[in-house]
């Protein structure tokens, strides 16, 4: 059958037909390959640059690199805030076969608590497998060494070092330096508002308090960038290019660490504050508020328990008493009022009153008493400062009136921020008619004016304000802003000094009035009846000052003040403002000690210790010891 059919077929015709069809097929094949090639030409040649850009966009990522935070030095170049490597034990889950087993073994080796493990597994589940997860933070050097010896047994586990802030002097400088801590939501919002997101993209910590916060913009520096090649999962394969970050500026403070430590020691366990400044510039040499706390606790996140303890402590360690404490200035402002009285012509240097220990307004039954029950007798302006005569100032305040006092004391800076380079500052209160109306909706009574004469009656001031105002007296009207910042450390080790900032000066009619007041302050320390004469017995340097005792508790008209009967927290605040040497003042010291009692016996001795320390150890000025015999001086 098959053979028969083959005879019928026209083989050559069929072969020709097939060959023709094959040729057509080949043509179609070539044409279709042409389509493929032209499409590839369009992709690879015509649109090459577009696709090359997209390919690079896939693989090249730009990562921010955090700048190193600027360091903080004291005026002598001692490091007060440094960047230390902190070690973290990190685990890359992807590189570990049996994660549970590895963690179990590590827990034994590195004393990892159950909470730390729990946190680790929580973090683990929310991250990509190749990203390192912290298992234990803040390893000690001993722990680092212990792990390093065993590291070869733990593939995918490593110790990472990151720079973190450390404050080597702990609680000595807390209220000055403040601290840095992890950037939180609120910080992030502020950063965004300031348009600094890019600059903070890689930054971990931010200044939360003190100098760290106030000078954050200088300390932070400029972010750098690293161009890396990544794969499709975002894992970094290699670094292509680096644009290094600009480190933050190293800053130098006016603080003298030695003096600061001495100040801390003099306050001992007492609640209070000492401010020491250089009256020539307003620079703050020391500023300590007691009690303080360790700022390092905050850097790595303070525990809830520790924070609650600080927050709820009745001693209020979180407050910087020097700038935030608002105290009645008491007798420390008598020199200021005396100057006002003299300069306004209300009194002159010979104006005298007879102090019987009691002051009365005409037709008013209320009696204002002097601190000395029987009075000081005949008192002129100089003696009124020397012995701190209250009655004289009741009279003066009455004569001046609240409007003059309020205006002049505002010019001295009371009731306003001093402008110190800290955000933690209160403005205090300088009372006035307008203030009382606004605050209590009551008129100002003459009776309100009388205690203003002795720095009471709604008048509150911060220790830094008092210090600034005394400097104004010393400088005869020139007003400086208290400054912690001294300048910037340059790469050659020199300090580029920041220029002192001045405020609108306090103007007087007659310059000699300054001298009257300053001389009276000298008598406080050196006069026969000076309230600080005992505190400054046998000093080698000449100093001047003013004591103050602020009443916190009103006693009844016919009662007398019995210290033992008044609860401790209601006892008087002891205060002292002073400066030395008298002729060319180098330091101005302000002391406030809460609930310590009288200023003469409780605050002035502290000021003396500080001055003693300063002239013995820091000042270049030397004072001959009048009691030293030539033999003693011989070798």
């Amino acid at each position, binding site marked *: 059958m098959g053979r028969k059919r083959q005879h*019928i*077929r*026209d083989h050559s015709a*069929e*072969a020709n*037909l*097939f*060959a023709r*069809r*094959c040729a057509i*097929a*080949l043509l179609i*094949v*070539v044409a*279709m*390959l042409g*389509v*493929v*090639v032209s*499409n*590839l*030409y369009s*992709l*690879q*040649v015509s*649109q*090459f640059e*577009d*696709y*090359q850009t*997209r*390919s*690079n966009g*896939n*693989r090249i990522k730009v990562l921010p690199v955090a700048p190193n935070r600027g360091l903080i030095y004291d005026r002598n170049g001692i490091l007060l805030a440094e960047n230390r490597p902190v070690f973290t034990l990190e685990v890359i889950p992807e590189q570990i076969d049996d994660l549970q087993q590895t963690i179990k073994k590590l827990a034994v080796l590195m004393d990892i608590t159950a909470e730390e493990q729990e946190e680790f597994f929580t973090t683990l589940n929310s991250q990509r497998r190749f990203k390192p997860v912290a298992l234990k933070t803040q390893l000690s050097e001993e722990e680092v060494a212990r792990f390093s010896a065993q590291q070869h047994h733990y593939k995918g586990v490593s110790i990472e070092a990151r720079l973190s802030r450390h404050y080597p002097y702990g609680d000595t400088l807390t209220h000055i330096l403040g601290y840095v801590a992890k950037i939180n939501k609120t910080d992030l919002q502020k950063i965004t508002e300031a348009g600094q997101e890019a600059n903070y993209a890689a930054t971990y910590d931010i200044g939360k308090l003190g100098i760290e916060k106030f000078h954050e913009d200088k300390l932070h520096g400029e972010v750098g960038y690293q161009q890396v*090649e*990544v*794969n*499709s*999962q975002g894992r970094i*394969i290699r670094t292509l290019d680096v644009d290094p970050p600009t480190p933050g500026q190293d800053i130098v403070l006016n603080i003298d660490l030695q003096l600061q430590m001495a100040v801390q020691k003099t306050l001992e366990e007492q609640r209070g504050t000492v401010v020491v400044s250089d009256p020539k510039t307003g620079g703050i040499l020391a500023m300590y508020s007691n009690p303080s706390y360790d700022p390092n606790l905050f850097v790595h996140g303070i525990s809830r328990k520790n924070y609650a303890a600080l927050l709820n402590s009745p001693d209020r360690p979180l407050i910087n008493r020097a700038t935030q404490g608002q105290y009645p200035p008491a007798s420390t402002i008598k020199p200021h009022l005396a100057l006002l009285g003299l300069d306004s012509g209300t009194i002159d240097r010979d104006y005298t009153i007879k102090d019987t220990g009691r002051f009365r307004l005409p037709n008013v039954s209320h009696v204002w008493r002097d601190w000395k029950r029987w009075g000081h007798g005949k008192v002129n302006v100089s003696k009124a400062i020397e012995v701190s005569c209250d009655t004289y100032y009741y009279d003066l305040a009455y004569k001046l009136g609240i409007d003059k006092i309020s205006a002049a004391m505002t010019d001295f800076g009371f009731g306003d921020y001093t402008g110190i380079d800290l955000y933690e500052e209160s403005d205090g209160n300088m009372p006035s008619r307008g203030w009382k109306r606004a605050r209590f909706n009551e008129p100002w009574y003459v009776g309100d004016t009388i205690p203003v004469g002795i720095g009471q009656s709604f008048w509150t001031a911060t220790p830094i304000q008092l210090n600034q105002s005394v400097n104004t007296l010393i400088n005869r009207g020139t007003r400086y802003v208290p400054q912690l910042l001294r300048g910037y450390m340059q790469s050659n080790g020199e300090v580029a000094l920041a220029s002192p900032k001045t405020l609108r000066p306090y103007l007087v009619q007659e310059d000699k009035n300054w001298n009257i007041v300053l001389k009276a302050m000298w008598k406080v320390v050196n006069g026969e009846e000076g309230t600080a004469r005992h505190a400054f017995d046998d000093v080698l340097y000449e100093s001047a000052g003013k004591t103050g005792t602020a009443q916190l508790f009103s006693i009844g008209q016919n009662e007398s003040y019995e210290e033992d009967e008044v609860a401790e927290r209601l006892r008087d605040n002891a205060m002292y403002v002073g400066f030395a040497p008298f002729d060319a003042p180098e330091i101005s010291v302000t002391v406030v000690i809460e609930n310590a009692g009288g200023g003469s016996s409780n605050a002035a001795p502290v000021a003396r210790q500080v001055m003693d320390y300063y002239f013995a150890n820091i000042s270049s000025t030397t004072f001959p010891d009048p009691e030293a015999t030539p033999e003693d001086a011989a070798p």
Partner: protein
Amino acid sequence: MKNKRATLSNNTPRLLERFHIDVILLMGLLTLMGVGMVTLYSASGQDMAQMERQLTRLAVGLGVMLIMAQIPLMAYRRLSPYAYIAGLLMLIAVLLFGDMGKGAQRWLDLKVIRFQPSELMKLAVPMMVAWYISKFTLPPRTLHVVTGFILVVIPTVLIARQPDLGTSLLIASSGIFAIFLAGMSWRLIGVVAGMIGAFAPVMWFFLMKEYQKQRVVTFLNPESDPLGAGYHIIQSKIAIGSGGAQGKGWLQGTQSQLEFLPERHTDFIFSVFSEEFGLVGVIGLLAIYLFIICRGLIIATRAQDAYSKLLAGSITLTFFVYIFVNMGMVSGLLPVVGVPLPLISYGGTSMVTLMAGFGILMAIGTQKRFLSR
């Protein structure tokens, strides 16, 4: 020594001839395999285990080709209807009891080996159509063309329902090529083209599964879903385009080495090749493919009988369909249907079928002489 070498070189072609090896075709295939291994080394991320497995498969493929070349052409012709019917039954069996794999029923578990009947049909369909058409004189009459199409459509639909769009496309084209080469009239071709156009909506609404429709939608507008279904095509186009004319260099393709390219050692290996060797490399690769296709068509035209001619032509042109569909889909010309780049893509089953096809081609190319003598 000199004498011995001369005898050896004289004997070599004869030795190859005895084992029905077409030297020219073999050279083309080996070159392609070489290029494939070089590309795979890069695409697999220098994975030596994958290289070894692929080498093993190539060796198996060459072995299968050698065996297929030895089988007498008469046997192929006689076996054609039985192979076709057996394949058809197995396809039905797969739909009824087949194993699921990646959401599709393709595998038939014969207890001893797992088997994909669709792979058998890649050869059985052109064999059956060639057998049926060549029973009558060429060019075929309309009735025979219609019958031929029915023989093609049944397995195509069965495979499309598995669903395996790529394979059904390859099987459909293999049968249609046989009918076309037989000399089907141009008028009829026009009618069929019209019918296929009419069939497309039927495919869309009744035969295609959701993921297949998704592929078509994505193909039409890949940027509509850049991280989802469009990701493959976008990344593949970026790889190809960024390769440029010269290419980024072997092992230097960032899209492939950094794993932006999915399935880069299997269906998308052409993207790796294009990225690293550029348009110049691609044209070289196409030249190798064209060389093999030309050789296949020469073998077909030189074949003695109509069955051999149609089968050889169909196998050769189907080989081209692999190339065109694969290159078309990775470069965004065609929807992604899962067709590998022949002898370059990593993977076993379809390569063995391809090599079996080349074995038959070699049988046709070498056995005719014995018949004609």
